[in-house]
């Protein structure tokens, strides 16, 4: 067993840096045009469609404005019977100085574009912080393709929790 633990510790040293906890946001790596041929192209803009849901207990009711989300029928989301759509918005994904978005509980969400990857994938970061308070979710980095959903849930709010549903989207210049 000691051998197992030794292996685990060595692996922890090897794996965690790959997770990117301390990786700087290198603007150089974020250029989608690196190495590309000089050719006319349409600049792509990316954003994140955000739904803020309020999950509470009570008589089962899922706000029809949420649309079809089978994730809400599965644990741990199914522990809450009621889901109400509080906010539906689109946040622009930019590399610098993202515009903060105030959540219903007063915390501030920021999303940032880190990197544009081939095949409509993007690497983005998100953070949730309490103004004049301690960090809550200082860093979250996600690689997702346009249209793929990821969820950040669990913040307490009015006898329930907030469920943030993110979906990266893109729009060509001129559409936004």
């Amino acid at each position, binding site marked *: *067993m*000691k*051998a*197992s*633990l*030794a*292996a*685990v*510790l*060595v*692996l*922890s*040293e*090897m*794996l*965690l*840096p*790959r*997770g*990117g*906890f*301390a*990786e700087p946001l290198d603007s150089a790596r974020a250029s989608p045009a690196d190495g590309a041929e000089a050719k006319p192209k349409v600049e792509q803009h990316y954003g994140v469609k955000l739904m803020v849901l309020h999950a509470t207990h009570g008589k089962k009711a899922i706000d029809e404005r949420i*649309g*079809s*989300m*089978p*994730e809400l*029928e*599965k*644990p*741990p*989301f199914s522990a809450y019977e009621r889901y109400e759509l509080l906010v539906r918005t689109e946040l622009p994904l930019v590399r610098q100085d993202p515009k903060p978005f105030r959540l219903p509980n007063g915390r501030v969400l920021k999303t940032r574009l880190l990197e544009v990857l081939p095949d409509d994938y993007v*690497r983005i970061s998100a953070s*949730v912080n309490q103004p004049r308070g*301690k*960090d*809550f*979710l*200082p*860093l*979250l*980095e*996600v*690689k*997702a*393709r*346009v*249209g*793929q*959903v*990821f*969820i*950040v*849930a*669990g*913040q*307490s709010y009015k006898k329930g*929790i907030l469920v943030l549903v993110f*979906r990266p989207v893109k729009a060509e210049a001129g559409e936004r």
Partner: protein
Amino acid sequence: MTLPTTTDVVLLHDGEIEPEDRRKVLEGLGRTERRHLRQLAALSEIVREVTGPRVEPPEDAVDRIVAYVAERRAREPVLLVSVPAPRGKVPKMAARGRAGFYAGLLAVAAAVGLWLGGPVLSAPGAPPRASALGASTRSPPSAEPAAIEAVDFGSGEGTIFVIESETGRTPVVWLLDGAGEAAQAHPL
């Protein structure tokens, strides 16, 4: 009755505890300690199966473990890991002692958990994902699932897991925002 410490849990897992102490520790195990013990056992099993009974891990241990997890993940339910607010790199081995072993193991659990949501899940043999729900808005089913690549829970705690549904795999970061909500984060 004295509550077991992290070191007690590690010693129990390693079988390096006297029978009388073992009984006391077992009696004192709470929900959290039992969950940690299960995580410890599961990860040790993975390491043993991949590396074999060696004193030092092989150079390709990481690749082998990732491939193993991907293969196993394709045929078993979602692995849920709890992450006790990892911040930065894990401290050096010499400084952490036996309890630190445990922290290191949980850190690996976090790393493996992150990878479970990543491209390795699309290894050959993985079940195909069904057509996207709200197909006009979701990504094509052939795409690799979204992956949480890094997370810092700051001074709090949270859990990372993946929900499988007919639309594919959805990574979830569940924040433990107060004791009242903590229990909801351990559904499996």
